[in-house]
């Protein structure tokens, strides 16, 4: 490993360049957050700033955190089966608050038959057990909206 002193962005000082900020959220009532923590750690190691919410978050808490932290992406991990109740609420709250430039993705136990409905909500990625970390990292890098870095809401 080579040391980058954490401010590798200083080489392009005049352009806006900053680490991607990601909210890793655990909605619903299941307390199994090992997966969420593994993802958070992998994204950190990929050079991103990861805000982890902890378990048992309501859609309101997640959207509020996404707004205050001005994240580029929200990744929700859920294993309880409540995704079809919780995800629409999260997407609705984002919309209500005019947050339209944040990438939303989901992981956990998401049955195949639910995936089309989840994607139709505007949740761009669905990642089940066995997904390679590289795949998730690449997905985030390629799908965050680069132009939001320069826009002023």
């Amino acid at each position, binding site marked *: *490993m*080579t*040391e*980058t*002193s*954490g*401010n*590798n*962005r*200083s*080489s392009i*000082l*005049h352009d*806006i*360049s*900053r*680490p991607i*900020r990601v909210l890793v959220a655990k909605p619903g009532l299941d307390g199994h957050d090992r997966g969420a923590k593994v993802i*958070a*750690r992998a*994204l*950190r*190691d*990929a*050079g*991103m*700033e*990861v*805000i*982890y*919410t*902890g378990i048992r*978050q*309501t859609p*309101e*808490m997640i959207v*509020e*955190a996404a*707004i*205050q*932290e*001005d994240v580029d992406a929200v990744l929700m991990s859920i294993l309880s089966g409540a995704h079809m109740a919780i995800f629409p609420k999260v997407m609705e709250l984002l919309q209500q*608050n*005019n*947050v339209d430039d944040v990438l939303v993705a989901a992981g956990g136990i998401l049955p195949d038959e639910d995936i089309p409905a989840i994607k139709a909500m505007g949740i761009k990625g669905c990642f089940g057990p066995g997904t390679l970390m590289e795949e998730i990292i690449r997905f985030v890098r390629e799908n965050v909206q680069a132009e939001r*870095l*320069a826009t*002023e*809401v």
Partner: protein
Amino acid sequence: MQNIVERLLSGDRRALARMVTLIEAEAPQARGYLAELHQHAGRAHIVGVTGSPGAGKSSLVTCLVRELRDRERKVGIIAVDPTSPFTGGAILGDRIRMMELAGDPNIFIRSMASRGNLGGLAASTRDVVRAMDAAGYDPVIVETVGTGQAEVEVMRTAQTVLVVVAPGMGDDIQAIKAGILEIADIFVVSKADKPGADQTVAELAMLLSLDSHRRQAAWRIPVLKTSAFKVQGISELVDAVQKHQVYLQESGSLAQRAQRQVQSEIQNLILQTVARALKDVVSEEEWRILVEDVTKRERDPYSAAAELAARVGLI
């Protein structure tokens, strides 16, 4: 459509959130915005919370905010966590303990990664305080990264510094003798529901009594016990913070601190300008060659620095 500064001033939370992003990224337009915000800031009491990792800073801040909300204050919180020196990434976990505060429109929490800054804060923390201050949050609480002995930068940003010490550190209390011990305006012994809290209070009180050159002659640094678990001692702590604020105002220390802070801020801005000018003048390839030459001892770092300084127009 109003611009981002106007929207921030009128209480738009998304405008504040994006402003912080622009400040952190050192976006070209940020300095202009900050210059405007400076006119509207200066009302907030800025409270720093520091202490070693796991001392209970985030839990304490959560309790403080709850108490401040009971007193109908609008509270801004900046929580700093360390950036990995290897990947530039960070895990910002202070929100976990603060999530119960979510959903209250009079609370704004922002996590910041230190991004290579070593003093316990991020380089742009002071400017983020300014944005929250201008947006009407008062107090603004700044939680540092878990600190060791020398991360005293918070004293150059905050007006009242709380140093949090968990009981059971025993002889390790030596570790805070210099540096961190000196910057406390209030000591907080956290986790008072655990054994050993009284002993830690006694040790701190003893250390303070040995301090013959007190920085603030008329302010007796209190040592307070709190328990976030049992929610004890919090109201007393908020009272002490307010008392310190009154002391600062009445003794004239507030103005002195402000002057010192402004001086160090302007110095920092100049250094940043120099760093930018250097980047403009010297290409990465040139840097690489220069570094290699000095590493191989084909030339010395002093003449290299002098040459670059001349090129930026400093000498």
